[in-house]
């Protein structure tokens, strides 16, 4: 069923009885052309673009829990393309363009809201760095705007401009950035992929791989063996665990990132703001809760929950940015498992095992990349060649020295 004003009207007049489940809960077939492991945003987007752009319809997405139950359901929903390095920025800008047409492509309201993102700077050096980044963005076709203090004040007069330690000097704005509804992105891709014949198999955990010589020709799962010509991994924080079953050791550590949402408020933050003197980002959901987060906890973790020192650090950063949130109460906080790569940038590449492909290393920035990640991974799976915007995301770049280290901290995943 195509969602439209007419379908809404019709079902509204007939007791909402005509709606069908948005996707089938498929049982696994014995064999597919392509299996995507991981039913998060990236895996489902990959399946959708394989079917819609490359005409490959015999696909299964297998997910150990229910779709969107991992990081796709745990992020802070920010979309942006404000990267610096040439290996990254064209990719994220491609993602931004896909976001802009996503709802029409999927026929699903993903609540993409280009409310703008503003990165604050607090020193001359930081202003210069942001000017450089803004220029890099423009070179890649993205939009950017360097604001002075008064420009920021016109947008957000309530920020703590005269903070004794970190006075706000200005900010780098990307007005096309914003937020999207994270669950709706998952559901939209799932529904659109399902309509193109993709099987979405839930509660199906990969327990091993089927090999023929070096090649991977399928997966062993909790619901039986499934063969495939190609297997793509899009399992985020579980990448090391799953890849180990294929005998691979990855340049990656799994870390926990916490996020927070406050009680609902009337509209107060109408865009996305990031603090430049600490790691803190905040936006407001359409329900009214302030959604914010900060650093990863900084130690290896698969626990999906973090510890209090980072909570304190996030709260301190928030108070330094906008003291008016001091009396807010938290509604919820949670943790997700980040696939922190050794240079802070992702991997979309073939692996040393023929037939096995890897989409991983998204660190804590995977949500915004969802459309382009799916697009580039689908391109790789279909053609065995990287997409033009993703040529730098190679698995062997750590061996060849072609790192994409936005932050410049080296092989220390907890610092990216």
């Amino acid at each position, binding site marked *: 069923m195509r969602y439209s004003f007419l379908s809404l009207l019709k079902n509204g007049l007939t007791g909402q009885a005509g709606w069908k489940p948005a996707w089938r809960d498929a049982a696994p077939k014995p064999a597919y052309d392509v299996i995507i492991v991981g039913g998060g945003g990236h895996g489902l987007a990959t399946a959708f673009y394989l079917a819609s752009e490359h005409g490959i319809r015999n696909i299964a997405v297998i997910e150990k829990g229910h779709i969107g139950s991992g990081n796709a359901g745990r992020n802070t929903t920010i979309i942006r393309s404000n990267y610096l390095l040439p290996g990254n920025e064209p990719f994220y800008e491609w993602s931004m363009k896909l976001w802009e047409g996503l709802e029409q492509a999927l026929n699903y309201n993903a609540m993409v809201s280009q409310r703008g993102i503003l990165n604050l700077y607090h020193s001359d050096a930081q202003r210069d760095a942001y000017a450089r980044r803004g220029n890099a963005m423009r070179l890649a076709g993205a939009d950017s705007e360097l604001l002075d203090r008064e420009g920021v004040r016109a947008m957000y007069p309530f920020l703590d401009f005269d903070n004794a330690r970190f006075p706000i000097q200005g900010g780098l704005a990307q007005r096309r950035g914003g937020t999207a509804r994270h669950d709706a992105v998952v559901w939209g891709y799932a529904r659109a992929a399902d309509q193109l014949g993709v099987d979405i198999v839930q509660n199906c955990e990969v327990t091993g791989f089927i090999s023929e010589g070096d090649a991977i020709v399928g997966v062993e799962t909790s619901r039986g063996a499934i063969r495939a010509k190609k297997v793509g991994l899009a399992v985020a924080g579980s990448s*090391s*665990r799953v890849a*180990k079953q294929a005998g691979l*050791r*990855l*340049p*990656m*550590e*799994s870390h926990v990132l916490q996020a927070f949402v406050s009680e609902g408020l009337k509209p107060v933050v109408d865009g996305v703001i990031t603090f430049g003197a600490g790691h803190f980002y905040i936006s407001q959901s359409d329900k009214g809760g302030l959604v914010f987060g900060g650093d990863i906890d*900084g*130690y*290896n*973790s*698969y*626990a999906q929950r973090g*510890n209090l*020192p980072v909570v*304190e650090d996030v709260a301190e950063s928030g108070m330094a940015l906008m003291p008016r949130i001091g009396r807010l109460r938290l509604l919820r906080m949670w943790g997700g498992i980040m696939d922190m790569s*050794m240079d802070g940038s992702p991997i979309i590449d073939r692996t040393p095992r023929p037939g096995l492909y890897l989409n991983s290393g998204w660190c804590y920035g995977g949500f915004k990349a969802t459309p382009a990640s799916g697009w580039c991974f689908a391109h790789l799976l279909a053609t065995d060649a990287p997409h033009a915007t993703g040529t730098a995301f190679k698995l062997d770049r*750590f*061996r060849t020295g072609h790192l994409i280290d936005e932050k410049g901290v080296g*092989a*220390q*995943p*907890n610092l990216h």
Partner: protein
Amino acid sequence: MRIPCPYCGARDASEFAYLGDATLTRPDPAAPDAADAFHDYVYLRDNPAGAHSEWWYHSGGCRRWLKVTRDTTSHAIAGAELAGGAK
């Protein structure tokens, strides 16, 4: 999360800085396979879900390096010893 420092006793994790996997051994730079060995040493990790041996530095305390054994699925700490052995 409290880390049982052998020198200071159980202290909050915020007093410590984290380095990472303590099972890695720096390869011999003169070995013929040094380039491969250093790639593995610097970039590749087992990244286990479960018991993990890791380096923590007690920067807000005795300033000793500790080798801590911690479960990455629960954050439960099984033990900690001084990196250079007890002195």
